């Protein structure tokens, strides 16, 4: 360890933390047991349904399974995260 590395090191987390974070994310996917194929099918269906009501930016669409803290704060739970940019609303016949 030289003198300058003392300053450099602060920015990157230690590899143990990196390992834990990577592991958590991998396990979210493993535990949900959702293949990328299924996720792709889900994505197509979501686009289909939403397109009935609004015009969306399919290029920028982002759908993934990730995790969030549970409501009772007892741990983390898997969530389906979808970021769907809307270009414009369609006129929907309401009756």
């Amino acid at each position, binding site marked *: 360890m030289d003198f300058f590395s003392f300053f450099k090191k602060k920015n990157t*987390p230690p590899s143990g933390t990196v*390992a*834990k974070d990577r*592991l958590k994310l991998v*396990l979210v996917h493993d535990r949900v047991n959702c293949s990328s194929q299924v996720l792709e099918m889900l994505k197509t269906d979501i686009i289909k349904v939403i397109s009935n009501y609004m015009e969306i930016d399919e290029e920028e669409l982002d759908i993934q399974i990730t995790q969030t803290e549970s409501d009772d704060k007892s741990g983390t739970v898997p969530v389906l995260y979808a970021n769907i940019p809307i270009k414009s609303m369609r006129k929907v016949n309401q009756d």
Partner: protein
Amino acid sequence: MSEVIVITSGKGGVGKTTTSANLGCGLAVLGKKVALVDADIGLRNLDVVMGLENRIVYDLVDVVEGNCRLKQALIKDKRFDGLFLLPAAQTRDKDAVSPEQMQKLCDNLKEEGFDYIIIDCPAGIEQGFKNAIAGADRAIVVTTPEVSAVRDADRIIGLLEANGLNNPTLILNRLRIDLVNRGEMMNIEDVTEILAVDILGVVPDDESIVIATNKGEPAVSNPESRAGQAYRNIVQRIMGEEVPLMTFEEEPETFMEKLKKLFRR
């Protein structure tokens, strides 16, 4: 009362066989009658870790197929009173045995009056795993503090619970406290938090394990070995006693290391 305990991990090379050998010996030292069963058919190894490789006549498949009686296949370990090994077959496939046959074998071993029957499970989640867990009353999952090993342990825990083996306990093997203290290895809390299981024990990474395995003498019988002490603690916990987790301290630095550090500053 006898209990069948399966030692499993998913990933290979994390220390299932070493753990099986040490727990078996440790229980026998405390006066229990123990059968060690090597369920890794085709890749038998528990015999060499135990140093009993020259005494094999019959194996697990011979017993299951009725080529010999159970008692004929059980190798008595002369160093530890009450310790017996049932070796795996080396020249057969995993599907030479069915889960039903393993279940029956475990029942027969219970009838022989064994207090503990320890099953060394093969790596993987296929037929060999299904066979090994078929007759088990409880499961111990072995892992190391690495992403791949913990991931596989998580999968195994799910499969165990799906097969009715609820609340498996965890042995965290090969922990390097110097790396943990520097933040370069996941610590005990990290792993238990992620896997959400009770910890049965933590075994430090210890060269005495390598030496013991070279000689075919389980480290648990070596009073000097740190890993051996960790296994002795685990044995007591298996028998229902409450033993606190080992405290981990870094190895004291040698003079040369101190000198090096001095110049690095």
